[in-house]
């Protein structure tokens, strides 16, 4: 429906789509942004304030992903979750660029979006310069740390004044991600957190797996069922091993 409205275009479609900018479903929200962009939407007045608020929310989500990525790390034992967080950050960057295109020169911002997604290093650097020149200072400090290619800790440092994030030990961060609301996060990311808890045999987080089994999302629920079986199997194996050691 949202996709079709983007194809139809016109003032009424734009009005209806703009009212859904913060719809509590990530996939629908992504499509709302793409459809508004297809309608050449330009935000003014109250609409611009709403877009700025959405940019702040996206940036806050981005800062949370950056902090989570740093806490989780990138070794092979957490590779699946690390990839999911990276994907989550890419999607946030894309949403930010679409939102910025509603406020500033859309053709230049959308061209930069294409270059950032698929261009060479030179084209990506040029795209970042274009955004840096077009975007107002108040939004630049919010968006640029998430769009440029600086290291994650550097990004987090620059985002900290507006979006402070706590640094957590890996297990605590896994617990937190597994509880992220699927309104703002892909269920895939949450499922990967649950999967990683099982892969790392974090028996102290079995309560997280138990609560994920009651999730409304089928992917998270299914992953949690497999994770519970895996963790309990390991626990039994460890118990047998302990029993054998005790007998000897």
């Amino acid at each position, binding site marked *: 429906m949202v996709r079709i409205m983007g194809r139809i275009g016109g003032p009424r479609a734009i009005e209806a789509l703009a009212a859904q900018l913060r719809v509590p479903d990530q996939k629908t929200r992504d499509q709302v942004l793409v459809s508004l962009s297809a309608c050449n939407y330009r935000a003014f007045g109250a609409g611009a304030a709403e877009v700025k608020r959405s940019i702040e929310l996206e940036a806050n989500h981005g800062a949370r992903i950056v902090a989570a990525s740093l806490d989780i790390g990138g070794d092979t034992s957490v590779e*699946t979750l690390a990839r*999911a967080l990276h*994907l989550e950050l890419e999607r946030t960057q894309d949403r930010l660029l679409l939102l910025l295109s509603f406020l500033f020169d859309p053709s230049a911002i959308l061209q930069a979006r294409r270059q950032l997604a698929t261009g060479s290093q030179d084209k990506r650097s040029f795209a970042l310069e274009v955004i840096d020149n077009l975007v107002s200072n108040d939004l630049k400090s919010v968006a640029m740390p998430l769009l440029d290619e600086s290291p994650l800790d550097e990004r987090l440092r620059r985002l900290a004044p507006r979006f402070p994030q706590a640094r957590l030990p890996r297990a605590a961060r896994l617990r937190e991600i597994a509880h992220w609301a699927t309104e703002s996060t*892909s269920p895939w990311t949450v*499922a990967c957190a649950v999967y990683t808890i099982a892969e790392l045999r974090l028996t102290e987080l079995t309560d997280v797996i138990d609560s994920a089994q009651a999730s409304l999302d089928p*992917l998270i629920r*299914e*992953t949690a069922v*497999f994770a519970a079986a895996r963790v309990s199997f390991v626990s039994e194996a460890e118990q047998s091993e302990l029993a054998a050691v005790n007998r000897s």
Partner: protein
Amino acid sequence: MLSTVEKVLLLRGVSIFSETPDDILADVAAIAEETYASAGETIITRGDIGTTMYVIIRGAVRVHAGELTIAALRDRAVFGELAALDPEPRSASVTATEDSHLLSVDHDVLLDLIAERVEVARGIIRFLCQRIRLTTSAAGTPGGVPTVGSLASEISGRLEGGDRA
């Protein structure tokens, strides 16, 4: 039995899905089916119209034309992947050499998913474009496949140079 996350980890190794993001691959994983083949069982027969691709979860297979073995494949290897996109007669037979646990994706089911999720099509198109670019770039390098233009230019040059042999 595999979870969806585990199926995604396997499907990630399939070249036609190499450009598809993991969260979109979860939708492909949902339509992928687990099957089993006993040692000695023929999975693919040469000449049959193939509509299914397979990933070996655990086990081993032999790709062969009659008695001639073309390849021996083990865990995580993929075979028949293009058949899931474009069915055509199989060019070789595949027989399990050990009891094997397989993940399969069928052409019709994949097409249904593509119709529903444009992102799956986008990932596959990106892969196919990269494949074309690679082929085109190989054509321009020594030893690569020559293009019509490069052949014409070479023939013309030889003729002008008196090389008519």
